[in-house]
């Protein structure tokens, strides 16, 4: 043994530790050792996430007889939702919201992401701070801010009247537009960060090469930068869209009763109308929608990595 060459006596802490170490090594050799690490978190997640979700979503497939309280398997809730034009309007509203918010985030987020990637370390630092700090503030406070700003006598309307765009206050609170503004503000960072990460990896010499070949600003953007940043656009869009259609706080506070989206509807059905089954069915539809977008994203990402024909 190598340390036989060394005649020093091991330290006390080592000697106390050795028996424990032996047991540990004995266990670590076993094939099932990894379960000791895996089971606690897995068990936790199963017990407090998987099971509750399954239980809840199951409710969507249940019909409760109003008199006998008997429970039967049924698709009635789904039929009720998908068969009603009013309910479908809510779904459509939600999708519309998601698309508009995603588009606006892309429009506003792209310049930020580009500047972050290309304008040098000082711009990058300040943009990062500006983008990350709202993420650290609770959505409640951010929404409160917008509630103040968008009021009829709030700073935005004061400003618009002052510079003469409008004569009387524009109603923004409790409107679809107000919700859009609020959501864009909340989710803009989720678009900027993945985009910036991707744009940064695009070799700047490609743009220089295009410029030296005579391409102007627009052509350089549309033919070089935009296509190469597509993975970032897809990633950011997926994040923002799924978050927007799932958003509860902003539509509830900035939209109120005039703006009906699926998440607020689910809450209404369950907490106010106490129709858990119907609410669960609607929630399931929302989840399916989210998973659909996720699958679409995966499919599109795979496609964009194939070589051009």
């Amino acid at each position: 043994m190598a340390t036989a060459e060394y005649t020093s006596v091991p330290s006390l802490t080592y000697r106390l530790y050795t028996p424990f170490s032996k047991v540990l090594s004995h266990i670590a050799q076993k094939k099932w050792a990894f379960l000791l690490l895996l089971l606690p978190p897995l068990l936790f997640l199963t017990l407090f996430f998987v099971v509750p979700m399954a239980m809840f979503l199951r409710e969507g497939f249940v019909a409760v007889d109003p008199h006998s309280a008997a429970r039967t398997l049924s698709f009635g809730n789904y039929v009720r939702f998908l068969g009603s034009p009013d309910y479908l309007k809510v779904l459509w509203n939600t999708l519309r919201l998601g698309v508009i918010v995603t588009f606006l985030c892309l429009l506003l987020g792209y310049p930020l992401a580009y500047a972050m990637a290309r304008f040098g370390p000082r711009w990058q630092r300040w943009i990062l701070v500006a983008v990350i700090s709202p993420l650290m503030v609770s959505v409640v406070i951010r929404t409160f801010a917008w509630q103040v700003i968008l009021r009829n006598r709030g700073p935005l309307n004061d400003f618009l009247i002052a510079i003469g765009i409008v004569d009387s206050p524009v109603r923004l609170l409790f409107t679809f537009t107000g919700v859009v503004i609020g959501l864009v503000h909340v989710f803009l960072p989720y678009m900027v960060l993945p985009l910036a990460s991707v744009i940064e990896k695009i070799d700047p010499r490609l743009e220089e090469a295009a410029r030296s070949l005579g391409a102007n600003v627009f052509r350089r953007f549309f033919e070089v930068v935009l296509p190469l940043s597509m993975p970032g656009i897809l990633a950011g869009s997926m994040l923002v869209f799924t978050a927007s259609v799932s958003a509860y706080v902003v539509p509830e506070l900035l939209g109120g009763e005039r703006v009906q989206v699926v998440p607020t509807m689910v809450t209404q059905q369950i907490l106010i109308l106490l129709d858990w089954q119907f609410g669960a069915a609607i929630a399931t539809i929302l989840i399916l929608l989210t998973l659909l977008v996720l699958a679409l994203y995966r499919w599109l990402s795979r496609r964009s990595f194939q070589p051009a024909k």
Partner: protein
Amino acid sequence: MDIALEGIGKRYGNDLALKPLDLQVPPGELLALLGPSGCGKTTLLRLIAGLIEPSQGKIEIRGRDVTHVPAHRRDVGLVFQNYALFPHMTVWQNVAFGLRMRGMPKGDIRRIVDETLEVVQLGRLGGRLPTQLSGGQQQRVAVARALVLKPAVLLLDEPFAALDKALRDQMQIELRNLQRRLNITSIFVTHDQDEALTISDRIAVMNAGRIEQVDSARGVFEAPKTEFVLGFIGQSNKFEGRVEAANAHGATVAIRDWRIKVVNASQGLSVGDKLTVAVRPGKMSLSREAPAADQNAIEGTIIDTLYLGTSTQYYVETGGVRTEVHRQNTDSSSAEQNFAIGDRVWITWLPQSTLLFPR
């Protein structure tokens, strides 16, 4: 024997990474495991280190059966290909790590680590982080870390692969000197034949999970046992031949119209055997005059020459086959012996230089 492997094999599912092999390494030897990618040399090294368990066979280190003994109790040190230095620890802490894990008191650790750093000539760099070191320095830290536990055997996995050419030559010599100074049995893995030929005492040439030959540099070069070793080390010209006559002292092999004499007493050659005849380009000579009748000779026309300073390579068309001849450009080569394209020449070589392999 410091290391004795008996019937060692390793399979991964259906893949036989190492076919049952034996290997013995005497004390103080520097052995190279040489072979192409995927031949199993790294697997074999890790097996000796104790990071992999063999599917069959026995490993003994200094007479002790270590087949099922974990790596840290096998008395071996391992230098990884990219050194695997702990990036968050200084040079000193990296080297001290093994001693700390054994519970050695701090005072002793300090003394031993300082000594070891001196041995690899890194005495003043103890406080640096690995990222602050050059490639050569990082390698020395890795060696120091392995040596600090005074192992019986030092194992190195492609230790020079990450270094550039000039540094590589220098570090090879340094390793050789260190190994000799400490007289520590060492095995290193490489795919570079020059490296193996330069510094090792013996070379184990491996191919597809098998050791084809274990021999000194001279042995694998002058007397390759298989066509793979022939092809992997150095260059060769190969011809198809048939035995025409054979006795106890030698044989005559026919290559097309030529008659080649060979001296291979140990081979049991019979008339009619089909063989591959090989001769290294460096063993061949060129001449304008027809050789004596009993010399090995083939005739041809020079179709290309390549002047390389120390030597010149000639490409000779010999009856449909291209033969390569390497000639040292010494001052004693007389002017008339400068051959040009188009010259008709005779290529000659000694019978002892003829290598034979069954077909």
